[in-house]
């Protein structure tokens, strides 16, 4: 929640909300495996985008997925769900 700046309860917002959207959370360093996307196999079905539990996949102007490794925590759901095997999980260096 980005609580470092608070000294005590009085500094907290009255509603239990975060200062920032969850898109700033860097979950990218959690991963052991990272997704590699092969555009040639992609049919733009958007299933990977729908299933990604983090805001790690966005769609470009043509409708192809763009993977933000900053957010990707390496769960592999996208690779598992892709009907065309267009996403592969490979070990992080």
């Amino acid at each position, binding site marked *: *929640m980005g609580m470092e700046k608070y000294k005590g*309860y009085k500094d*907290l917002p009255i509603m*239990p909300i*975060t200062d*920032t959207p969850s898109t700033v959370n860097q979950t990218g360093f959690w991963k052991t495996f990272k997704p590699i996307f092969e555009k040639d196999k992609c049919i733009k079905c958007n299933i990977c985008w729908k299933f990604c539990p983090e805001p790690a996949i966005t769609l470009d102007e043509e409708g192809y997925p763009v993977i933000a490794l900053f957010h990707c925590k390496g769960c592999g759901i996208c690779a598992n769900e892709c009907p065309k095997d267009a996403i592969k999980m490979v070990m992080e260096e």
Partner: protein
Amino acid sequence: MVKAVISGNSASAYGAKIAKAEVIAAYPITPQTSIIEKIASFVANGEFKTEFVKVESEHSAMAACVAASLTGARTYTASSSHGLLLMHEMLIWASGARTPIVMSNVNRANGPPWSVWADQHDTMAQRDTGWMQIYCESNQEVLDSILMSYKIGESPDIMIPSMIIEDAFILSHTVEPVDIPDQDAVDDFLPPFAPEKKLDPDDPHGFGSLVMPEWYMEFRYKIAESMDLARDRIREVEKDFEKRFGRSYGGLMDFYEVEDADAVLMIGGSVASTAKEVIDKMRKEGKKVGLARVRYFRPFPVDEVRWLAKKVNKIGVVDRSYCFGHGGPIAAEVYGALLPTGDRPIVKNFIAGLGGKDITPEVLERLFNKMLVTNESGTEKEIEWVDVKGHSLGVE
């Protein structure tokens, strides 16, 4: 201002309408249904522009209200009995998320055995949900309390939801004269809801997200602090309301003829109104009796109870519900409030009127007389069930 002869349920519907609730999500249940029907007819006639959401359960109704409130919309719902019980989880969500929703609840017994009649068990079971609770005495108070509760709850330093409570049938389906204030006067009293933060795609935040143990208590303390602060706010808002509309209800606890009283009954809900009539009659006979009406049960009127205990030596607490295991819920609060003080009036707990058993003037007179003669100091027969057939310890 229009003066109309309307039911408590109509008063609730009018309250939501003139408070300009922007989102209403509700599910029908006897005896609350006519609130929803009245609002639906307002919407159908084009008299009330609100987002009326039909849902599949009370749990969903409250979930929809929480989400709507987080978008910055003034939000209203209504329920009763088992419907309120089904809402329980989301009631806690609403107060934790600091959504100042206002709901009407028609006080109805919980089953089984099945009963649709007046009883406070449904709302007393929500004691710890973090909602303010107002037990009303008249249909006018139902309407006025809705207006005041939005103003109190939506204060930036309060942000707590409120439950406006009407006794089943005794208020919900009884018609009596009610002043319906003019829209301009209400708008002037109650400005639009403007929370500091709301769900807004242009200013995204995480709402109600996880907090680590280091900060959970701090957020909960803030609710406790706001609930304590609400006591003064309730009194201030009521003063302002009285100045504008000429009506007031005694803040957290409404006292009647207690100054010189030898014995006082403490009661929540519409029975208090009947008790005032009984007190006038008994005072004419020279019996010094009075009433402390529990208007707010949360926040509890601790200062008022302590003040009362300095004035009178005998307090009979009439609970229209029972906490199985030990005692009535209002009495438990009274004992708790008095323990840290040196004042030790005789406090007795009467359990009466469950499941709509009528609390008549005659019953109240017996309870007053019982208090006037009692010298028991609490531990012996401190809890007495009133008029339970075949129960020898009941008040004769």
